[in-house]
């Protein structure tokens, strides 16, 4: 791989690049899925290629190829320079990059049991056993159990002298039961929707989820949802479980604090941000209970790495401190706009794509409440678990989330079950209404491996630490 990097950087320099970096990325994946008693898929794959990013005539160009012959790499490097020169016809000012030290280093994430060494028989047996348990509940008509694994090895090099090799393994698994009746389909999943929980780690992480042990509850709750009460409509207090808080953070704090969005670079596709650079250090984003960090150093999180995809060390930074906006997620190009150096958030979806600012592990820091105490402290409201639908406007202000299940809270106690609760709000008012966050005992990191951004579309693996959190005066039961 390192010889490919050297060849790419030499060719780009010879073609006239004033800066170049290159990433060779090799990925291997395996996915298995069982649906309603049938093995739906047993699949594996691999991909290898190089992405070359250049600055020429003061503008960016990027070319990627799976042709790793010397000619293939040289052609891609020259193509990247030609793309940069073409882009320069509209440049008002040349691209400049915040300084970063050059690193020659290796980094790898912990993985106790390489999942690619575990037999397909063992993996399928676990999924089929779990699926059998889910299907034991009569009212559950469709079931799903799946797991997937990715191994990544990549080498980054730049004309500034960095040469960084990184490797990690990600593992993901989850189950879902769907009860269907009277014209509605009601899902219940574990440990989260959309394929479950994703972590950096190996087979040990899959076993720790105890899918078979959780299947009876999941199936029972799915069936019970058919006769559960509809979500009431109106303003009330809500307590949201950690997995849904994670997505709430993702959509209404993570994305709007990406500095490329703030600067307008994503305007035509994902949108911009309701936050501006002048807001830094002064804007009240939420209540005093809201402190949010961006952290690429949390072991086991799929948002962690040693270095980002422009060679900046992974690090922890504060985005919101006691409710006040104190930081953005940045890159080498964007960070000078706020008078800082990059806090290392540039990542690409494989060798094919140019790095963008992507979330690392963006977390709502834990508070001090016990979960039972928080319920007991709530006179009237709804406790909501597990996302099922998400939508937010192009400035990340107006959002609406649907969830799988809820329970009434009456007089400090959980009451009857509620089906398909949803809630809507506007970002600063919503976070301003946060008056309690549960403690670190209830806090965990949730992997979100499906974050879409950019054109061509890139899917990033990001994560969020979160604990159950309470919000006041929230509109629930939209169109229910």
């Amino acid at each position: 791989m390192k010889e490919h990097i050297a060849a790419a950087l030499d060719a780009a320099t010879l073609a006239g690049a004033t800066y170049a970096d290159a990433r060779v990325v090799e990925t291997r994946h395996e996915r298995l899925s069982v649906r309603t008693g049938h093995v739906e898929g047993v699949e594996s794959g691999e991909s290898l290629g190089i992405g070359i990013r250049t600055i020429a005539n003061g503008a960016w160009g990027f070319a990627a190829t799976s042709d790793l012959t010397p000619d293939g790499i040289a052609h891609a490097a020259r193509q990247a320079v030609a793309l940069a020169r073409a882009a320069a016809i509209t440049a008002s000012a040349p691209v400049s990059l915040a300084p970063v030290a050059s690193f020659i280093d290796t980094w790898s994430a912990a993985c106790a049991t390489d999942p690619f060494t575990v037999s397909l028989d063992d993996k399928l047996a676990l999924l089929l056993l779990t699926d059998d348990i889910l299907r034991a509940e009569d009212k559950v008509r469709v079931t799903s159990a799946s797991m997937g694994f990715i191994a990544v090895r990549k080498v980054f090099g730049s004309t500034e002298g960095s040469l960084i090799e990184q490797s990690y393994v990600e593992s993901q698994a989850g189950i879902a039961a769907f009860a269907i009746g009277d014209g509605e389909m009601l899902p219940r999943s574990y440990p989260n929707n959309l394929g479950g929980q994703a972590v950096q780690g190996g087979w040990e992480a899959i076993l720790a989820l105890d899918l078979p042990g959780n299947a009876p509850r999941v199936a029972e709750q799915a069936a019970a949802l058919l006769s559960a009460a509809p979500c009431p409509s109106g303003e009330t207090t809500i307590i949201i479980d950690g997995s849904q808080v994670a997505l709430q953070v993702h959509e209404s704090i993570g994305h709007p604090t990406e500095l490329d969005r703030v600067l307008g670079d994503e305007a035509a596709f994902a949108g911009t941000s309701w936050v501006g650079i002048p807001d830094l250090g002064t804007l009240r984003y939420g209540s005093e209970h809201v402190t949010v960090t961006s952290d690429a150093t949390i072991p086991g999180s799929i948002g962690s790495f040693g270095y980002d995809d422009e060679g900046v060390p992974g690090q922890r930074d504060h985005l919101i401190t006691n409710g006040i906006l104190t930081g953005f997620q940045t890159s080498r190009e964007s960070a000078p706009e706020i008078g800082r150096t990059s806090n290392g958030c540039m990542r690409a979806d494989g060798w094919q794509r140019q790095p963008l600012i992507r979330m690392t592990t963006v977390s709502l820091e834990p508070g001090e409440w016990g979960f039972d105490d928080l319920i007991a402290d709530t006179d009237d409201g709804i406790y909501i678990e597990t996302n099922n639908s998400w939508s937010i406007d192009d400035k990340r202000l107006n959002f609406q989330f649907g969830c799988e299940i809820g329970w009434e809270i009456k007089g400090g106690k959980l009451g009857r079950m509620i089906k398909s609760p949803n809630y809507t709000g506007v970002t600063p008012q919503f976070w301003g209404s946060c008056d309690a966050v549960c403690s670190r005992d209830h806090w965990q990191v949730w992997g979100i491996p499906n974050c879409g951004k950019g054109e061509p579309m890139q899917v990033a693996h990001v994560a969020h630490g979160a604990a159950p959190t309470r919000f006041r005066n929230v509109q629930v039961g939209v169109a229910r």
Partner: protein
Amino acid sequence: MNRSLDDVRCIADRAAHAVPADAAEAIVLSRYSALTRFAGNRIHQNVAESDAQVSIRAVLGSRTGVASTNKLDDASILRCANAAADAARHAPQDADFPGLPHPKQLSIPSRAPLLLDAYGPQERAEAAREILDQSAARGLVAAGTVAVNDTITAVASTHGVDAAMHTDDIRATVLSMNGPSASGWASYFGRDARGFLPAQLGSHAATIAERSEGAVELAPGTYTVVLAPEAVADLLDFLGYLGFGAKAFAEGSSFLIDALGSRVVDPRISIYDDALSPATVGISFDYEGQPRRRTPLIEGGIAVGPVTDSYFAALLDRDNTGHALPAPNPYGPLPLNLEMAAGDTSVEDMIASVDRGVYVTRFHYVNVEDPMKVVLTGMTRDGTFMIENGRLAAPVRNLRFTQGVLSAFSSVGAIGSQRQLCGAEESAVLAPALLLEQWAFTGQTG
């Protein structure tokens, strides 16, 4: 830039016959794509990508396994073939698996290839500049893309399937921003280079942006709406994903259950999937090499049926409509070339017929509230206006809707006479504008 059709076809054939199994199928996708992206009135990303990937499905009895690679040397393809066979050996028998399909007569549309050289880095940059100049000259800020795709798809199997086709397209988008809360939008998607007029596209978006300044609030409620084609395309896309696939039908989660042969929407609504339409860009066979054909999904308001692949056609005892996605996948067969039949009303006449309503240029971040009733939520963006006394009136701040598509399509006032190809190559939708009498807006950007 891309491989030749014959090369890709040979790779597929070689891969299918390399598998130590009872039967095998190989899909090869070879692609060159390039995209020039601009924001803040300058190009900030200019990218190109070349790749080819082979995916092999091995069959042992009724067991199947899949493996893929983008390493196309003989040793790597053999390793991939063995991995697929190994996966099949570990999979349990599937009594419902009908076997790989046999070849059928294909109809490959004759489409002259785009001259990719005419859309090289310099030409795309020039087109981007033409677009953004329209905003810059008016003191506005433009963002968007000019992109070209060139794809060769080949499917081969040990049963004799031998399908290959070249497709290409141009896609351009432009968002013109007039301050922090006013914007306009225009896009082009297709393969007719004469239809891609950058300056005109940029001017259209800039005009909407200028017109959008000073947006007002609108109380949530039910309104008459005129939806531009891109907004309609979003609704059709979700209708296809949630309701028109055979997997959702077989599992009982599609609105088509118990509705076949019944009226489900206004009788003026007809929806088809048609990869052979000269207006679209897709391939005319599916990822099992089976022919796609014009498939009615809703005709005259009546539910006709779902799209199928070989597995679900056998399971449901229906015809195979040729809508397989690459195996395995969690979706089952899906319509990738949806179209709604055109009506006879211009957008101008639709607006003229509305006393009080809302015009929507496009939606943003649409998602599902209720899959069986196809209730969706999402936002408007880049040009939302009041309609008053038959004319576009004040711009409106972006609105949230929470609305059932089937119920909305049951209150049709008019269907547009012109259709626009929207989306992307993987899921192209040919949509007209729609006048809908009942549309629920449930919130607004704060």
